[in-house]
């Protein structure tokens, strides 16, 4: 196609890598390792704050990097795709390689795959909302707060899932189901918002 989607995706993946390194350093500096697996509100708050570095990285990838030949509509898709791909590879490839070659079978890796799918949808919707927030100048006033609220919810998804796992003690399959469900819901909402912002064409 005439759009340079591959280049955009690769650039987004590289930005994700850099963001992950920065997050690692911040986590190592500020967080203390807790012995038990319980939910510590203070630690989780700190982790959520550090999670916003994610959002900053996404902003950088969307707004600051110059991409050749790509329309706004497709830009967020390519950036979201590259972002989610890098996330899956970095977080899930190594455990898959080491763990899935054993003789025993566990459902973990299949659930991780489904989780990666949900993560992809979430990343794309976050990129869509991000592009609405930073790239589009003319937005209907009423929708702006909704956009920011949705973006906030999607950005804090990791904190929500860790609260569910530790605080409420949900098991992995339940969490993956929850993630899939919320990702579909958020994707639908951001799709509606996106098309709502498309309509007033000046």
């Amino acid at each position: 196609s005439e759009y340079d989607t591959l280049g955009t995706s690769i650039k987004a993946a590289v930005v994700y890598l850099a963001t992950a390194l920065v997050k690692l350093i911040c986590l190592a500096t500020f967080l203390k390792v807790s012995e038990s697996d319980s939910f510590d509100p203070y630690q989780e708050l700190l982790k959520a704050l550090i999670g916003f570095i994610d959002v900053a990285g996404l902003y950088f990838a969307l707004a600051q990097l110059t991409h050749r030949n790509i329309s706004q509509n497709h830009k967020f898709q390519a950036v979201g795709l590259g972002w989610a791909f890098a996330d899956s590879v970095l977080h899930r490839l190594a455990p898959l390689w080491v763990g899935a070659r054993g003789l025993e079978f566990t459902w973990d890796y299949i659930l991780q795959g489904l989780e990666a799918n949900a993560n992809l949808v979430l990343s794309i919707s976050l990129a869509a909302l991000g592009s609405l927030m930073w790239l589009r100048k003319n937005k209907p006033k009423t929708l702006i707060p909704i956009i920011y609220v949705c973006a906030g919810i999607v950005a804090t998804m990791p904190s929500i899932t860790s609260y569910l796992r530790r605080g409420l003690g949900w098991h992995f399959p339940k969490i993956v189901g929850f993630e899939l469900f919320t990702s579909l819901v958020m994707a639908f909402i951001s799709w509606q918002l996106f098309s709502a912002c498309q309509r007033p064409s000046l």
Partner: protein
Amino acid sequence: MAPRKSPRERQMLVLESVIALVFVLVACVELCDGATVVDVYHLIQYDISGAPFGSRLAGLNHHATSLHFSPHADLSRTVLLIPLREFNISFVKEYIAENKPLGGLLFLLPQIFNFENKGEVGSNHLDGTEELLKNVLAELEQILIRTNLPYPVYFAFEDDNINAVLADIKKSDITGQPATATTGGYKFVVSALEPKSLVSPSITNIQGWLTGLKAGDDAHQLPTIAIVASYDTFGAAPALSVGSDSNGSGVVALLEVARLFSLLYSNPKTRGQYNLLFGLTSGGPYNYNGTRKWLRSFDQRLRESIDYAICIDSIGSWENELWIHVSKPPENSYIKQIMEDFSSVAEELGFNVNLKHKKINISNPRVAWEHEQFSRLRVTAATLSELSAAPELLEKTGGLIDSRHFVDEKAIIRGVKLVAESLARHIYGHQGKNIQIFADNSNLAVNPYYIRSWLDVLSQTPRVAPFFSKDDPFVMALKKELEDHTDEVNLQREALDGMFTFYDSTSAKLNIYQVASVTFDLLLLLVLGSYLIVLFSFLVITTRGLDDLISLFRRPPSRKVKTA
């Protein structure tokens, strides 16, 4: 001239080689451990003059089944998991006698036989089940070490993990679904190398010399009394052969007697006019090979100066009587004297000592008691033991059943008192007088804590001689202890006689995996494949339309070449 590679191509080459290297490194990552890892101990593997005995294989990679397998099942590629509590000895005899093919055997022993288990100790009051288990295990051990088994045989101890696995296996066996590659189940994997024969195993004899008081005339050599015990063991599982009774009790008794006499001999006023020679010999189960080599290393004068030798063999679990075994006829004056000393002391202490005479047959290589090696070189000797009959080759040599739980330290204390008082009576000439040198509550009393601590150490050290390393710390510890109590200690290292060859597999780790059946794998593949296909078609339909999806499968129409 070959074209130069452009910088971009060179970059791609470097990148490709880096990626290849990464893949190679990642492929070397080890597989993670299975659900359960259990310590298992291999059955001993040895040859006697070339005839093979024991379990000849070490590596294991088969499915597991329990005793409830269906009668027509083919067991040549399965491992039988047999707990000792449900064991039927005729079943094993039948299997071995008919040479039925088997993938492997794993025996599950109760924790009472585990020397690492710090449970209750020392009570001689076995309840009925323990006695029964002990007898069954003794019989099993004797069968296993005398048979050539062409498959791996391992021992393990019961614990929660493996009990749960066993319960699961039994359940699936009873429902008629044995574990195979197609139906899934438990898989036992032991990754062990091919067992190699041990090159020139060595035996180490330790001797301690306590010099007596020379009364003025130096040229006249003092007579010597020898006290000997063999310290090594042999059993079905060499990593578990701690031999608390055979002959841990003998070693402990020897050390305590050495300690008591070193106290007496430290003061010249109480030093006797006899030299004392303490010998800790190795090679006991192998016809007392070490004792023979030790005696042959003496020069003639020393051998002639030995008045008599007392060998101690298993005095850890007796109640009312001990036996003195001799090979010289009872009318011999030395033997009479020994018996007099011992029986008078025994009477005072409240038990019996009986004499048993067994003639030695020089042409028979079998040496049943340690004193027979002395007798073959014309030295008077006797063995003090709780056993009334001579054991056969490789019997009662401290195997699986000989654990700390079945040894009573009070019996050892009484045995030490007997030996020490009888020797003292002979050395100091108190025959017939009722004098107790090593009385309780005196500073020459037998020390129960010393006996208990050494017995505990011995009961936690497997001591099969070919598996001792050079300068083994245990042998060095015995040497050091004897150095504390005697004037001069010597080590003698010899090679074990060529009749026995040993192989080096002793213990391993068993990985238990729960493997899913082939049908499950195929089903899962189908489900995942259909999920991915559905997802793909959904995305294509919503973005490009149904026609595009169908056009993927249709061959592109052939282009008609327009002729100019």
